[in-house]
């Protein structure tokens, strides 16, 4: 950069800093929103996994054995018996009210039938409308049932004089040894927060990039902006957006630090790779912001498009519903979202700690996004000079 260009850049940069102090939207839209989200999500999911969820019981037997069974249920990690109900109908109503996520029905004569080997059935009802609560409770209840009946089987076999070493082979001939790679506790926060927070970040980057540029067009200050940067749209954009690059990268890295260090979420690679990814991610979304406001140099339209695109990012990241299970067209579209590549890098590096070679192509993909603004330089410059777009 020549000396002239540099001084133009510096002047534009300083001008933007001044502008950022002039309205609350700049502070609120960067530090304000991100800190609110950090506080909200980290406190919201501080448990890691929802434990002790309310369940109900319909104990029609009320015998020592049925009570023992319920005590076992209550001792599991996820279930908390909060209601004693008199019938299936009542329990179902309580479930519809959302007061319990599951209930168990123990028939009368339960104990008597167990003792006389008549194998009474126990039925669990789980509400899977609340998918997370339902799935976790189902897993927990199944596990508990297996344990309880395993203990009973052991007793019976021992009584029959079966050799200790052979008992497990009879109770459970094929057993599974499950390894949860990267997230051994199946922590729910790890699934969500590692992408939700970058998700909010991309939304705010898009919004503020478009706002910072669009407001110049709307309030007809764009000529002044261009003049400050020596009539170079490139310098004008660099000078204007650099403050946001710094702020958002810093905010993103604070997010990384909060997740990996404060919350102790898995980071099996060098954390610097995630810092680098965060930086490239910020720049990629700034570039997309320029692209959008360049295509439609009307602030209102830019904001609306950014809203649409930004919200879709949460879906196309693929962290809730995997991309390859979506319709084929959707899979192609997912490449248009930097958050998709962020997710891939995060999984490879932080979650699995793979060699960085596996992520190089995704890092490069993030860099490719920075080329996009080139297509709208001319258009944006014209808009800045002629101010010939509607401002409403």
């Amino acid at each position: 950069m020549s000396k002239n260009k540099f001084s133009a850049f510096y002047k534009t940069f300083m001008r933007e800093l001044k502008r950022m102090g002039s309205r609350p939207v700049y502070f609120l839209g960067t530090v304000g929103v991100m800190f609110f989200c950090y506080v909200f999500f980290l406190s919201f999911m501080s448990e890691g996994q929802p434990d002790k969820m309310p369940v109900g019981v319909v104990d029609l037997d009320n015998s020592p054995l049925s009570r023992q069974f319920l005590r076992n249920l209550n001792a599991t990690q996820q279930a908390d018996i909060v209601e004693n109900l008199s019938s299936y109908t009542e329990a179902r109503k309580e479930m519809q009210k959302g007061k319990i996520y599951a209930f168990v029905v123990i028939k009368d004569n339960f104990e008597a039938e167990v003792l006389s080997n008549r194998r009474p059935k126990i039925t669990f009802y789980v509400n899977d409308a609340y998918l997370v609560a339902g799935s976790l409770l189902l897993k927990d209840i199944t596990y508990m049932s297996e344990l309880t009946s395993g203990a009973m089987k052991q007793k019976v076999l021992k009584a029959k004089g079966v050799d200790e070493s052979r008992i497990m082979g009879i109770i459970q001939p094929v057993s599974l040894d499950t390894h949860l790679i990267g997230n051994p506790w199946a922590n729910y926060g790890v699934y969500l927060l590692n992408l939700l927070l970058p998700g909010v970040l991309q939304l705010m980057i898009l919004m503020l990039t478009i706002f910072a540029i669009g407001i110049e067009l709307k309030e007809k200050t764009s000529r002044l902006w261009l003049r400050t940067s020596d009539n170079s749209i490139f310098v004008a954009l660099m000078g204007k957006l650099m403050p946001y690059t710094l702020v958002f990268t810093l905010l993103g890295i604070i997010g990384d630090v909060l997740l990996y260090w404060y919350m102790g979420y898995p980071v099996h690679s060098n954390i610097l790779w995630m810092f680098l990814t965060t930086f490239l991610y910020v720049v990629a979304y700034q570039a997309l912001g320029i692209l959008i406001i360049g295509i439609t140099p009307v602030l209102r339209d830019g904001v609306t498009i950014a809203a649409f695109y930004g919200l879709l990012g949460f879906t196309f990241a693929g962290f809730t519903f995997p991309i390859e299970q979506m319709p084929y067209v959707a899979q192609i579209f997912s490449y248009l979202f930097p958050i998709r590549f962020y997710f891939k890098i995060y999984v490879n590096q932080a979650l699995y700690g793979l060699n960085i070679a596996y992520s190089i192509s995704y890092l490069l993909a993030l860099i490719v996004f920075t080329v996009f603004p080139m297509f709208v330089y001319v258009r944006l410059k014209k808009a800045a000079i002629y101010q010939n777009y509607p401002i409403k």
Partner: protein
Amino acid sequence: MKNSNKDMSLILRFISHIRAMFYVFIDEVKNIFKDRGVVVIVILAVLVYPLLYCSLYMNETLVDVPVVVVDDSHTAKSAEFSRHLDATRDVKVYSKANNMHEAELLFNTSKVHGIIYIPADFDKKLNRGEQAIVSVYSDMSSFLYYRALILSTNYVALDLGKDIQVQRLNAMGITGEQQAVISEPIPYESVILFNEGMGFASFLMPAILILIIHQTLFFGIGMAAGTAREENRYHELVNSSVHRGGIFRVILGKTLAFFSIYMLWSVYLLGFIPWLFNLPHIGNPFTLLEFIVPFLLASIFFSMTVSVFVPSREIQMVLLLFFSLILLFLSGISWPQSNISGFWRLFGWLFPATFGIQAYFKINTMGAGIHEIVFEQTGLWIQTAIYFITTTIAFYGQIYKKRNEIQQ
């Protein structure tokens, strides 16, 4: 005579109020359709969003998640395990690897999302009557991979185990009744009530649909108010004569405009879309109506109250779009409501979406009647009352400010 005159004038005044309100209503509807920005939000977005999201999540559950099997046992039994696994709906065997190293390579390049390792002594152990162990390595990048893998491998292990168990017990001379007692002393049955298919769209979409109503109203009303503010025509909102009846007329006229548009949208969003995409829709239409009326009113008054603080057209969306996500979590359909801390639960009660999502979920997914959603319905009516009052105060404040400015 005098009395009836008074009656007449009362009726006339009433009629004139209604007429005035009607004009504000017509005016407001026209205003909405004149503003391209508002139309994009309250018409286009409402139309397109549900179609788009429902299409993306069309596959409710994961089908044939690819896994790789490392079979060091190379026996008929181990092949059976892998064949059974392949036959499940959730998982398919993408390939067989010769060793763990090969399998890891496939895993690292995301070709597969799980590794099944069958050790060399698998068959030997089974023949000796011992417990054979199969190792499962699951991709944890998405909750749904994990669930698919755990469900299918558990199923196969139990299924295969059952046959072997019968053989072993038979060999020991334990048969019939006795055998049943050992293999299953207490039969368990798990019944899934509501969202029986455990579908992802069936779980998420109802909440999204309510959020679409809440958020498009919020941003639509906000943008309309921002425009008015920018063009400095707040006087138009309140008409020329600012008397006591005037302000209510304006508020009710605006409310009526958005209310009638969104009543139509409710049929589309809460009736048509769930039917079209086969999302849960077991709700009674009258119960839905009893919920949707206070929900729309509360959302409109809430948005109008906030709109007073919106200085320009775009600011609200720039700053508050992210809040859609917060609302989704506050509603308690993902992270269960019972596990939301007291503070955040109270905070959630500020927003009509929180009650709205729960109520709609309960009615339409779980078939709840009005008695089961009394809590949510009461909450929505209380919000309607409170936000109506705050709207009135806020509008009065605006007029007062304007008047002062004019006088100066």
